[in-house]
C-alpha cells in the first residue's frame, strides 16, 4: 500500500490582481519612454540633483522637484550583478530564467542611475565603468519599464 506522508504540507498561491496608478511623475517618465524612446528625470530646485525614476520630492531637501531634464539613452555602468540562482517573479508566480544580468546605469546628462537588465550575461565581459546604451522595444511599447529591453554594451 502506498505510504502516505505523515508530515502534512499545504500549498497555497497568493493571487491578487491589482491596478496600479503611475501618478504624474512616474507617468511622465514612462510615457516619454513609450512615445519618444527617451529618458527624462526631474531635478531638485534646491540641491540640483536629478532623480530617476522621477518622484515628487527630493528626499534630501524635502522640496517638490518640478523641473524636468532630458537624459541620454547612453550611460556608464556603476554596478552590476549576474543572477544564477532563480527566484520567483512575484508578478507571475513563476521562476525567473537564469542567468540574467542587471546593473545600475548612470545616464549621461544627470547624476541619477537607472537599474535595468544588461544584454551581456557573462560576468567576465562586464565591468564597472563600461559604456552601455538602452535598447527599446520597437513594437508594442505600453508605458512599462519593460519597454526598455535591456542595456547593451557599446564599449568594453
Amino acid at each position, binding site marked *: 500500500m502506498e505510504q502516505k506522508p505523515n508530515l*502534512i504540507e*499545504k500549498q*497555497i498561491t*497568493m*493571487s*491578487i*490582481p*491589482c*491596478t*496600479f*496608478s*503611475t*501618478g*504624474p*511623475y*512616474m507617468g511622465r517618465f514612462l510615457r516619454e519612454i513609450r512615445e519618444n524612446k527617451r529618458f527624462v528625470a526631474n531635478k531638485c530646485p534646491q540641491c540640483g540633483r536629478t532623480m530617476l525614476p522621477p*518622484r*515628487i*520630492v*527630493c*528626499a*534630501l531637501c*524635502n522640496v517638490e522637484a518640478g523641473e524636468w531634464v532630458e537624459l541620454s539613452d547612453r550611460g556608464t555602468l556603476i554596478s552590476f550583478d549576474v543572477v544564477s540562482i532563480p527566484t520567483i517573479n512575484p508578478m507571475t508566480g513563476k521562476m525567473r530564467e537564469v542567468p540574467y544580468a542587471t546593473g545600475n546605469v548612470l545616464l549621461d546628462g544627470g547624476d541619477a542611475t537607472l537599474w535595468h537588465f544588461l544584454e551581456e550575461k557573462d560576468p567576465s565581459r562586464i565591468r564597472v565603468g563600461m559604456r552601455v546604451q538602452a535598447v527599446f522595444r520597437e513594437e508594442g511599447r505600453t508605458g512599462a519599464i519593460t519597454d526598455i529591453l535591456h542595456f547593451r554594451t557599446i564599449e568594453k
Partner: protein
Amino acid sequence: MNERVAIVAWAQTAYEACKPHQRVQEMVYEVVKKVREQTGLKFSEDGTGIDNAITASDDIWDARTISDTPVGDVVGAHHRSEEKVGQDGAQAVFYACAGILSGHYDVTLVVAHCKESQPASRNLITNLTFDPFFQRSLGLDYLSAAALQARAYMDRYGISPEQCARVVAKSYNNARGNPLILRARELSVDEVIRSPLIADPIRELDAYPVTDGACALILAREEKAKKITDKPVWIDGMGNAYDAYFLGDRDLWDCQSLKLAASKAYRMAGIKDARKEIDVAEVSAFYSYQELLWTEGLGFCPPGEGGKLLDSGATKISGQIPVNPSGGVLVGSPTIVAGMARVIEAAIQVRGEGGSRQVSKVRTALAHGTSGPCGQLHTVLILKG
C-alpha cells in the same frame, strides 16, 4: 517623564472610491505638505523640528513589501528615524505617543495610507489573514467573518436589521457636514434595508465602501506643543488589547478586547464614567452592527443595549454621547487609515472646528481604531482640550 503629548496639526485627503491620479507617495505628500505648512516645521533631529516619523500601511494592500519605503522620502525619513506600524492608524498614533512619552522623541509625524481600489477585491487580501489549514480554504474573509459576528450579536440581544440600517443612515447624513467625504448624501433607512444582502445579515450598505485616502498628524511633547500651536489637543489616555485569533475561541457577540483597551485608556485619562465624561466619540465601525457593539464595549451602555442607545437618540450629534459626527468608516475610510482619521475627527471636535458636524461643548473626545477580523485588536485614545 511627566510631560503630556499633544496633537498640534493634522490633514486628511478627500476620501473617495478611487484616486487614479496618485501613487501612495503623492497621496501621503498631499497631507504631509499641509501639516508642515500649518506648523512651519522642518525635518530635523537637532531639537528644532520633526525628529521622528511613524507610518501606517500594509504590504499586501500596497502589493509592496516594506510598504513604508515609497513614502520614506515624503515623511523626511532619508537619513533620519522612521518606523512602520503594520496595523490600523490609531495604533500608529498610540505607538508614536509612546515614543514621545518615553522621552525618545520630541516631535513625531504620523501618517497612514491605503488605496483599497488597488486590489481586484479586498476579500482576496483579508482571506490571507486566516489560518491556511483551518480557515483559508473555506473562503473566509473579513466580510464573512463580520457576518458571523453580526449574526451572533444580533441573535443574542435581539438587535434588528432596522437598527443597523439606522446606523448607516445616521452616518451618511452626518457625513454631509464633512466636506472630505465625497460619498455623503441623504440616505434613508429604507434604502439600506433594500440594498442586497452580501453575507447575511450584512447588506451592501451595511458594509464600508472601497475607499482610497491618507492622513497625517504631528504629535509633540508638551513644552514643544505649546510653542507650535495655541490649541494643542492632548492625548491623555490610551490603551489597546488583542483578542484570540480563531473566531471560535471568542464569544463573538462580545468584544472583550475593546473593553480591556477602553478600561486602560480610561484609567490613564482619569475617566470614571465614560457615558457622562466623554463628549463625543469617533469609533471605527466597518459594518453597521459594529457601531452598536462597540458602544457597549466602550461602556456607553450596558451589554446588549447598543440598539437601545441608538434608538434613544443619544448617539446623534445633538445627543448625550454623539458617535461618529464625521460619518465614521461606513461612509468611506480605508482600512489602516480609518482609526487615524477617527483620531483627527476627534481632534477637530476638541478644537471646535467641526463646522456643521460640530458637537457642542467638547472638552473630552474618544477616538477608536481596530485591526483584524471582527475587531481583534482595539486601540482607544482619549483626547482633551
